[in-house]
């Protein structure tokens, strides 16, 4: 028989990646009881596990200039980055880097003896070694006295008198129920990836979905992550060689101009849309010096026993690249729960957001260099941990009434109590087929977005309320599916709402940026069971100089402009 457990804590943290670990450690510094609940294993879970290339630091002693960094992010982010947050993250970067290093994260030196990668001026990107950031952060959290509960899928936030007072979840391995009663709750459960190609399919945007259902405001779901990955039918894994060798061609062998593009913008999608696909990663063009660099990087960052280490770039070859590695994810640090202050409070009292599901928008409409995601997550984690702790110190221990608990339990168990309906695996497949194609999620058009939205609305209204689960493993799948369908609706609605193109949001029917009308962010929340969207203008003092020619303000040309 599954057991029912009540966990009382001061600060509950949902998701133990780098953001959750930073939040937990900071909240513990206030002498509070802190609990992390993680869907898999804190420190080894989610995006932090795969974020291994580097960490951005801003350090004037290394020759970095604040104005240069701010301007680069403004231009790349196409002027809808939240400048207040951009400055905070840059200025907090050195302290978080030092914290990570002191907890045991390895940072390796390049051949020139410096830790900073030179390929991404004006930013300082420090290379991470084998330890990456997650496991040492977990160790530090444990050392600080944080209670870690692994293997728990949190399903729904608990609310009492308008305040978030914890959450309810279960352990898929045992079916055991967990009721978390907390004075403050931090959501740091990462992104949604629609169970796509890249290996973070466990991330189904649960935190953002829970926050939305509880009434929080969400922002900027229209900017897709544009990472693509090479695939090979023989099953080769490309380790760290792929990000180092950026020679991509169309099917005819013409090299794609990826200069100055970290996430490849939409260059590949534009080529595919013109019928010039498939896109090829051409390792045959690398010199022996290039191959040596890839080998060195592999040695420093890939566990020797792993299959990634077995890939020898020296064998060369041409490999097909597949689009949508983490399709469903938003441009790093952009989409997510709307923070109302610089301590990551949300519109719901008692709820804080950190990491990739906190919509700081500090990078705006484009992700300019590796390591910014991890950095933003560490900074919002730190601030959410402090914000949540300060709030918890001011409020009484929550009392949760029977009605609220019964509501949450009904939602949690509904799929296993249903004898008939729809399998979550099948609904996920329909969802995948509806939203993943490039002409829906990358190259957008009103007609196609509306068509996809019709299907997604039907999934949401008709299939999701009838999802079934025959055991506690499938119960997790059912909740994952429900959250992914909700994310799809957010993405499609935000994409329809922004009637222009900007950064990685591209509308074939509106191929230009529209200033000043769209120097704005899209926000949404639930109102009477419907998703309501509206526009939040970017403060005028952050606008570009609109008297300059368009081509000068926006150096990047889009298809059809």
């Amino acid at each position, binding site marked *: 028989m599954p057991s029912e457990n009540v966990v009382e804590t001061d600060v509950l943290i949902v998701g133990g990646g780098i953001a959750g670990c930073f939040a937990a450690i900071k909240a513990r510094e206030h002498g509070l009881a802190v609990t992390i609940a993680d869907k898999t294993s804190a420190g080894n*879970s989610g995006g932090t596990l795969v974020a291994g290339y580097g960490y951005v630091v801003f350090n004037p002693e290394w020759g970095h200039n604040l104005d240069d960094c701010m301007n680069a992010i403004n231009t790349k982010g196409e002027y809808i980055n939240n400048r207040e947050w951009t400055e905070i993250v840059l200025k907090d970067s050195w302290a978080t880097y030092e914290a990570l290093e002191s907890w045991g994260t390895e940072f390796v030196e390049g051949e020139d003896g410096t830790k900073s990668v030179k390929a991404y001026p004006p930013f300082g990107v420090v290379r991470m070694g084998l330890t990456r950031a997650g496991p040492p952060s977990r160790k530090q959290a444990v050392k600080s006295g944080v209670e870690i509960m*692994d293997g728990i899928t949190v399903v729904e936030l608990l609310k009492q008198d308008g305040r978030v007072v914890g959450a309810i979840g279960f352990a898929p391995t045992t079916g055991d129920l967990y009721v978390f009663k907390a004075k403050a709750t931090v959501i740091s459960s990462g992104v949604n990836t629609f*169970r796509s190609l890249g290996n*973070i399919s*466990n991330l189904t945007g649960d935190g953002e979905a829970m926050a939305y259902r509880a009434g929080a405001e969400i922002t900027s779901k229209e900017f897709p992550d544009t990472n*693509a990955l090479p695939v090979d039918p023989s099953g080769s894994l490309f380790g760290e060689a792929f990000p180092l060798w950026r020679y991509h061609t169309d099917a005819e062998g013409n090299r794609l101009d990826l200069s100055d593009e970290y996430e490849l913008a939409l260059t590949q999608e534009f080529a*595919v849309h013109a019928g010039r696909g498939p896109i090829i990663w051409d390792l045959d063009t690398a010199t022996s010096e290039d191959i040596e660099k890839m080998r060195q990087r592999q040695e420093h960052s890939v566990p020797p026993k792993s299959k990634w280490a077995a890939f020898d770039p020296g064998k060369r070859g041409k490999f097909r690249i597949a689009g949508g590695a983490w399709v469903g994810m938003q441009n790093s640090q952009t989409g997510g729960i709307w923070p109302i202050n610089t301590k990551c409070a949300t519109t719901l009292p008692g709820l804080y957001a950190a990491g990739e599901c906190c919509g700081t928008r500090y990078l705006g409409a484009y992700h300019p260099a590796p390591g910014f995601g991890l950095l933003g997550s560490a900074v919002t984690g730190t601030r959410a941990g402090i914000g949540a702790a300060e709030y918890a110190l001011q409020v009484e221990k929550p009392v949760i009434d029977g009605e609220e608990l019964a509501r949450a339990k009904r939602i949690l168990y509904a799929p296993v109590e249903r004898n008939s309906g729809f399998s979550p695996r099948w609904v996920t497949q329909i969802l*995948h087929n509806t939203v*993943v*194609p490039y002409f829906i999620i990358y190259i957008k058009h009103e007609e196609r977005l509306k068509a996809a939205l019709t299907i997604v609305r039907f999934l949401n209204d008709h299939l999701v309320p009838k999802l079934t689960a025959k055991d506690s493993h499938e119960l997790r799948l059912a909740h994952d599916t429900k959250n992914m369908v909700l994310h799809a609706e957010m993405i499609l609605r935000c994409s329809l709402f922004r009637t222009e193109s900007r950064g990685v949001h591209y509308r074939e029917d509106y191929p230009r940026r529209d200033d000043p009308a769209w120097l704005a962010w899209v926000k949404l929340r639930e109102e009477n069971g419907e998703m309501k969207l509206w526009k939040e203008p970017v403060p005028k003092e952050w606008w570009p100089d609109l008297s300059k020619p368009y081509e000068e303000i926006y150096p990047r040309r889009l298809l059809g402009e």
Partner: protein
Amino acid sequence: MAIERINPDLCNGCRLCINSCPMDVIRLDEESNKAVCKYPEDCMCCYICELECPEDAIYVSPVRHVPLLVSW
């Protein structure tokens, strides 16, 4: 395909693979006290179990059970 084999002769029942699997696909067979891949259709081929296993008892092949639709 996915987790193709968990060798029962090598598995020591330590549960490391179960606890580290992001997709919740491995269970401990109570009778034999050995890990088994119970939900292979949900394996995302991340190789974490293979890497974590102290006895090298697990082999994961890089092909998922349900072929994934890619964006292009």
